[in-house]
């Protein structure tokens, strides 16, 4: 076809690379490239707000130190009959989950920020899939929280945490934590889409911060009053903590692993389509 010939004859003053580069826009290669650009953006946001990084690492570490050194002595004796282990070994898996959950909740603030400022319009005016913007936040959250978790584990090892896990068990524990972070991140995306202001979205992070208190994170649910006990046994955080604890310190896991997977996958299956629909609605009006 001589169309190409004609094109070469034109006196196009616009940069050739811009013209040529902007043409093909679909296909897996560009999808991956777009995702990478937006994940980089998400990571930059994390690195540019060291205060939130410090909060999401320092807060769990302080809680851990407080529970181990301040309450630990008293708690250890009180829970001996149900959890006959060193308290530091009991509490660290709980703190890991608290770190990951709290860190993931920050995603809600990031999403609300995007939606409430004009920046989402800029992305929408580009020839890319809009949901990649959300994907950028999700992947950045995964990276951020696995990093924060590693830091917390490092400090835990310094204060006497002695995991008994094999390489395989470590891998499984990391897998469980990743699944948990993914689940919490998507729930955060939903809250971020619902919230009208970043302040509103930050309320969600506090809710998430307190969820582990009424679980098996700090004390075995058996030691709680019956109403709390019932809630603690049947909320998603407990089976995930029990799974991670079992993998890392060798306590019995029982059916916690299956329950943990069921909770995470169940919530993801529920939350992802709702978030998707809400995102579409918020971006087309």
């Amino acid at each position, binding site marked *: *076809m001589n*169309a*190409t010939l*004609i*094109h070469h*004859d*034109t*006196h*196009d*003053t*616009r*940069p050739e*690379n*811009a*013209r040529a*580069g*902007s*043409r*093909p*826009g*679909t296909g897996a290669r*560009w999808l991956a*490239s*777009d995702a990478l*650009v*937006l994940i*980089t*953006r998400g990571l*930059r*946001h994390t690195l*540019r*707000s060291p205060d939130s990084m410090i909060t999401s690492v320092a807060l769990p570490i302080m809680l851990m130190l407080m529970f181990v050194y301040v309450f630990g002595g008293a708690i250890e004796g009180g829970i001996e009959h149900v959890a006959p282990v060193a308290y530091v070994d009991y509490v660290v898996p709980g703190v890991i989950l608290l770190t990951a959950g709290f860190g993931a909740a920050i995603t809600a603030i990031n999403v609300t920020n995007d939606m409430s*400022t*004009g*920046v*989402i*319009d*800029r*992305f*929408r*005016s*580009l*020839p*890319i899939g809009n949901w990649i913007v959300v994907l950028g936040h999700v992947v950045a959250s995964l990276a951020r929280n696995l990093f924060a978790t590693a830091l917390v584990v490092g400090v835990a090892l310094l204060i006497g945490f002695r995991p008994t896990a094999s390489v395989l068990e470590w891998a499984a524990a990391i897998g469980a934590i990743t699944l948990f972070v993914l689940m919490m991140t998507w729930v955060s995306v939903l809250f971020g889409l619902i919230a009208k202001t970043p302040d509103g979205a930050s309320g969600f992070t506090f809710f998430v911060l307190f969820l582990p208190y009424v679980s098996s994170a700090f004390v075995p649910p058996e030691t709680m009053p019956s109403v709390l006990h019932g809630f603690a046994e049947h909320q998603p955080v407990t089976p995930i903590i029990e799974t991670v604890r079992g993998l890392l310190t060798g306590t019995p896991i029982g059916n916690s692993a299956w329950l943990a997977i069921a909770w995470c996958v169940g919530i993801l299956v529920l939350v992802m389509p709702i978030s998707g629909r809400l995102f579409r609605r918020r971006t*087309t*009006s």
Partner: protein
Amino acid sequence: MENTVIREGMATVKPTRQAAIHASGLRKSFKDSAVLDGVDLDVDTGTMLALLGPNGAGKTTTVRILSTLLPFDGGEATISGYDVACEPDEVRRVMGITGQYATVDEVLTGRENLVMIGRLYHLGKAAARARADTLLHQFDLVDAADRAVRTYSGGMRRRLDLAASLIADPPVIFLDEPTTGLDPRSRQAMWDVIRGLVASGTTILLTTQYLEEADQLADRVAVIDHGRIIADGTAAELKQRVGTERLELSFEHTADLAAARTALGVEDLHVDEEALRLSTAVGGPDEVRDVLNALGQVPVRATDLQLSRPTLDDVFFDLTGQARPDGDGTRTTARAVATEGADAA
């Protein structure tokens, strides 16, 4: 892809006066209220149309629909021949939009914003960087390039935002009130940039509340009110319809006002009985002299005399055929708009 090449090639070889931006019968309602009630627009390739109208007239809605950001209820629209409703990705590839609120990432630096957007337009890494450099230079943002955008002034943000929409060098640009809220110096700088775009052959649809801005920049002006285009023409044509300058006289007593009214006896006379003012259109110094001579025939004393150019308000009252509402508020607003424009110029 082959298609695109053919389209571009044909358009250049056989320059038809094909409209780069076309809309007909565009309708949009939010809940029960119609915001756009059949908007027709055509902007020829390489020209600039100013969409002039007050707040709530439907300017932003029109631009958001044409730039694929908002679905519409009826009518049809094409950008460079691509259907806005059916081919949104093609449309996004040939247009850029700069909104009323800067749509840039506050956390990232100016340079990072531009490179990121360049990458999302699928420029290579090196090409995106080079393009960002060029634009930072062009928009006088080199010194601030590596600072977080949250430290930018309003004018800088607006310039960065415009630069962002030019990354892929789109042939069509939408500018939604690009100078609203800017100080006169920033506004002037923005005007220079926009003039440069027109000179390079870009097709532009600009919305504005300022007659002055439309007058300064655009080839053609379309006036929008209540979701309909009520006038369309060159700025000169529009002004002609509104009349030229107006001479405004203030009086101390009702009797003086009445006497002056009788003495002038012309048809085009706006009388504000409460404020004791009247105004009439004057075509030039000769007509001013005629008016003053007519007043000299009767014993009236005017306390103030003012010559004012047509304002956006005048355009609207003339075009919509509505009676000019009396009262100070409107006139003050009208003058404020005119003054603001004059300051910038």
